[in-house]
């Protein structure tokens, strides 16, 4: 199975996964240049691997939650690539990639509950609770969410995986090895692959913004004269 994955919910990341082997990958720590770096990364990864787009078994997009503009750059890229190549398009919730990494890396105990949290800016985090599978190699289960809110409002007493741990060390019980971790496209592709192999349906690529636009419906006209 050959999957191209993109996640732009935090950093801009791209990966090409052949079965369980990462054939090519790109990650930019800059969270504000997704529209610039994404297409060149896709082009380079496919060229270096000698893979034509139409050879892919699917394009996988991280659907957030994440800051809006960067998230959209990844989603419109993934949708357009899949449309032109005529290959299946799959969505994966971006926090699932971090949950997978934590469980696969043994950072959370089998069968235990834990949180994944990323940077939502404005002093808030995107987060969701998961339960690690008791079976080795199986994906963690999403318990609810995803949510957006202040770190201090998260459920207490659960270890937290992801950048929110590094940003709000006093508010959460961070897992040190994952305190600066963002969703990664290679992990996203692995999550998609495991679901496809298990016959579990994947989500579409509708973005998880979790916040409305800040626009306010205008009130009555202001008056300078009484």
């Amino acid at each position, binding site marked *: 199975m050959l999957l191209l994955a993109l996640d732009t919910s935090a950093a801009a990341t791209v990966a090409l996964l052949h079965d369980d082997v990462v054939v090519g990958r790109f990650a930019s720590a800059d969270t504000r240049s997704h529209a610039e770096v994404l297409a060149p990364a896709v082009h380079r990864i496919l060229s270096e691997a000698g893979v034509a787009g139409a050879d892919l078994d699917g394009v996988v997009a991280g659907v957030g939650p994440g800051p*809006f503009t960067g998230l*959209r*750059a990844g989603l419109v*890229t993934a*949708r357009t690539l899949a449309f*032109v190549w005529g290959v299946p398009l799959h969505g994966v919730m971006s926090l699932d990639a971090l949950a997978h990494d934590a469980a696969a890396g043994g950072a959370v105990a089998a069968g235990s509950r834990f949180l994944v949290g990323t940077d939502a800016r404005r002093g808030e985090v995107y987060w969701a609770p998961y339960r690690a599978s008791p079976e080795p190699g199986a994906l963690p289960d999403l318990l609810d969410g995803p949510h957006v809110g202040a770190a201090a409002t998260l459920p207490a007493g659960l270890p937290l995986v992801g950048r929110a741990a590094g940003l709000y060390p006093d508010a959460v019980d961070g897992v040190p090895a994952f305190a600066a971790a963002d969703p990664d496209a290679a992990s996203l592709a692995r999550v998609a692959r495991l679901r496809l192999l298990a016959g579990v349906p994947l989500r579409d690529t509708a*973005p998880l913004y979790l916040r409305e636009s800040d*626009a*306010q419906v205008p009130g009555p006209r202001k008056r*300078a004269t009484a």
Partner: protein
Amino acid sequence: MRTARPLVLGIESSCDETGVGIVRGTELLTNTVSSSMDEHVRFGGVIPEIASRAHLEAFVPTLRAALDDADVTLDELDAIAVTAGPGLSGALMVGVSAAKALAVATGKPLYAINHLVAHVGVGMVGGTFSDGLPPNLGALLVSGGHTEILRVIDIAKDVELLGSTIDDAAGEAYDKTARILGLGYPGGPAIDRLAQQGDPTAIRFPRGLSQPKYMGTAEQPGPHRYDWSFSGLKTAVARSVEQYEAAGLEVPVADIAASFQEAVVDIITSKAVLACREHGITTLLLGGGVAANRRLRELTAERCEAAGITLTVPAPSLCTDNGAMVAALGAQIVLDGGSPSGIAFGTDPSLPVTSITLASA
């Protein structure tokens, strides 16, 4: 690639229209547009985040519809063009990301082009200028985001900005004024309609930047000889309404609408024609969404004729934001031997008109 009639697909997403157009040289094959205007009505203006969300959802369906309508395949394209600026940053980012993905997936060269110059380039298609762009061409662009007067020396590589608004765009002034008058959004058509029943000389609203200290003379131009300002006009309308209300009088909405419109149109056309006369412009293209305004077309025609300037207005669907104009300009740049922009360039919300295509990053 140096075919006489390059097949070019153009993508536009600088504001609230998701546009995909396809041209073969100067032949228009499709002008497919999806607008999010209805979603902005309750806010009384374009909300960038809402426009950007709509672009994401509209892009692939609009692309698909355009290809069907033009009956061409992506394989057949010679090039892709996309608006890289000026415009709303987040909105531009969607079109540019999509265009780059399209370029990567098809292997076609991508040209990042200027939205304002594309409003002029659209004159190449749709029968506007059947013999190509005339010499000594100027362009007056009036929309919700722009108010500019340009001199076009060579559409593919040499365009000069003669003047522009220093604050609100004219269309924005219409929207804000319509809100003050309770006429809804978009303001242009509502004010234009009501103005026909009002007296345009009822209230003398200010003509911004028209004082001698801003104008200077042809020999010694002032700092804003061809520039406009509309923010004071909007405030003047608000004060006028308040004065009627404070006096317990009924607000003469039609007269205010007509007087406001006359002030906008008078200052736009007088300065534009002045710029044309002083720069040897003999043909003027009127573009942008406000080009649909009845009074603006009327007074521009009148004053151009008096000054011996030929006025040309493209079809309304080519005046508002669209992908065909991007494709039309892209085709001219391809024919001119322009270099593609690669796939690493960024958007530029304040791209100057002198930058017609972005160089490869």
